[in-house]
């Protein structure tokens, strides 16, 4: 009798082993499990595989979380950490901006205020910047607060990096004289380079403003002055074109 019970027990164990091994894989994973699977690849540095995985997952089930996971792969490959950006974001000036930069003094002064905070944000270029541009582009398709707060961090790095591309222009003693006295002096410089620089960082500034509007809907008016600043600075770009290439 006791051998029979022992045998039943052993048979029961082996049945469970065979049955469970064969069946436990059939259940469809939840969205959270699917995201965890893809992020395992990211944690192991398998970025290409993770990008393909999340692109396919997003096509099969487009959701905010899958989109953020997909964009996260680019951010990880660019070597950035959102936590670092959050600390920098908190120091970003939200005041002292918005007075109409009618004079070059105003503009230069305001740019320098921005520069001080932007210096706390990583400067990236090359393929890392391309990765962030890709992340920003795919996140643009959704306007929900959680997607846009993530995009806001990315656009902040792009703003900082494109702005710093023109450090030499900003620090040039000629630029202040040129802007104050005669914009035509800039036309003798590499004015297209100045124009391109102005257009790139002001674009990301305006994108950032849009991200903040979606992330913090009740604070939209707090960012309105910043938007005006970016638009005005962008206006110099058009003014340059009109002056140098009439």
């Amino acid at each position, binding site marked *: 009798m*006791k*051998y029979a*019970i*022992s045998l039943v*027990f052993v048979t*029961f*164990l*082996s*049945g*469970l*082993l*065979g*049955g*469970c*091994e*064969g*069946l*436990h894989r059939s*259940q469809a994973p939840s969205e*959270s499990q699917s*995201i*965890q699977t893809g*992020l*395992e690849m*990211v*944690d192991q540095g398998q970025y290409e595989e993770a990008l393909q995985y999340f692109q396919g997952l997003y096509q099969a089930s487009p959701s905010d*979380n899958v989109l*953020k*996971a997909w*964009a*996260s792969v680019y*951010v*990880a490959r660019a*070597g*950035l*950490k*959102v*936590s670092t950006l*959050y600390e920098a974001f908190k120091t970003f000036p939200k005041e002292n901006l918005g007075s109409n930069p009618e004079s070059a003094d105003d503009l230069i002064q305001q740019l320098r205020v921005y520069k001080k905070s932007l210096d706390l944000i990583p400067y990236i270029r090359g393929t890392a910047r391309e990765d962030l541009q890709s992340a920003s582009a795919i996140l643009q398709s959704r306007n929900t*607060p*959680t997607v*846009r*707060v*993530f995009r806001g*961090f990315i656009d902040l790095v792009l703003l900082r990096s494109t702005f710093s591309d023109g450090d030499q222009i900003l620090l040039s003693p000629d630029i202040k004289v040129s802007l104050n006295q005669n914009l035509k002096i800039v036309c003798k410089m590499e004015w297209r380079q100045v124009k391109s620089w102005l257009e790139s960082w002001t674009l990301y500034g305006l994108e950032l403003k849009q991200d903040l509007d979606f*992330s*913090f*809907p*009740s*604070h939209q008016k707090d960012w309105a002055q910043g938007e005006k600043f970016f638009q005005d600075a962008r206006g110099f770009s058009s003014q340059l074109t009109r002056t140098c290439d009439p």
Partner: protein
Amino acid sequence: MKCLVGCAILLLTSASWALNLRDQALGDACYFIREKSDLTLCQPTNVAREDNEFFYGNLFFSEGVHQAENWRNVIEGRATPEQILSLIQDNRTSYLMSETNMGIVGRSWALGFKPYELWAKTKIQNPSNPYASVDAGFAQVLSLDFGNYLNEELSVGLKAEAAQLKVLKQSLFLADLLAEGTNVHWQPRQQTRFALSPAAAFEPNGAWGRARYSVMWKQSYVDSTGQIMAGVSFLNDFSMGDLEWGLGTRFQESEPVQPNLFTQYAMGLTTFSASVAKDEQTYAAFLKLKSFDSGLSYFITPGDHTLLFQMGFTM
């Protein structure tokens, strides 16, 4: 036959992950060891072995217990996004567990009450934009165990539990918490649940190593899902103490089957135990001084480890 058994198991089980400190303290060994530490009461057939009546009380807690009150606020839905961020932004997988329990054990029965059980497990992935999976809860549990020998060799038992629960399961990118209005998702699920866990043990007379086969259908009161614990243990008496050892397995849907080797060595006032599976290891040491018990358990999973502390008494 294998498929039939497998299908039956599939119908009965589904994915679950619920912490229980008594399980964690000894690992899966808690379900198979017959010479239990006075701190544990996992297998209801064990009460069939009791010759005395006694009252017990225990306190368990893990590392990070100082955050218990903050986690309680999260589970109760009272925490702000900033407080949630501060709890889970350290970019590591972590466990927090805390429990008090008390009860009376009689001959073939036990009545237990847990006025406070709190658990919080966080798993963090992708440091560049951290993705956190949080499983947290608070429970108050009443339990009743019955166990009896059907004959000299075969014993059966039943554990019945009723629990009042607040459970929070959430996966999110931590950056989400910075956006406006996202804390609305952090609302706990409140519920009352009942769980029944039957068990059987077979100890053939004269078997080598006093073999004992045991099987238990363990139902979780957290989500009513279940798993089967099955194993065999052997008991050897030495002049320097008692050595119990064996092999057990846990069967649960969506989880790979993990054979588990366990051993416990009781010598005088001290007891040492180890439970080793592929993805989970537990090492514990207990000390008993008259009516007072204390224990230390080290729990290791891939990418993480935690210390559990225990204090208790029996009288």
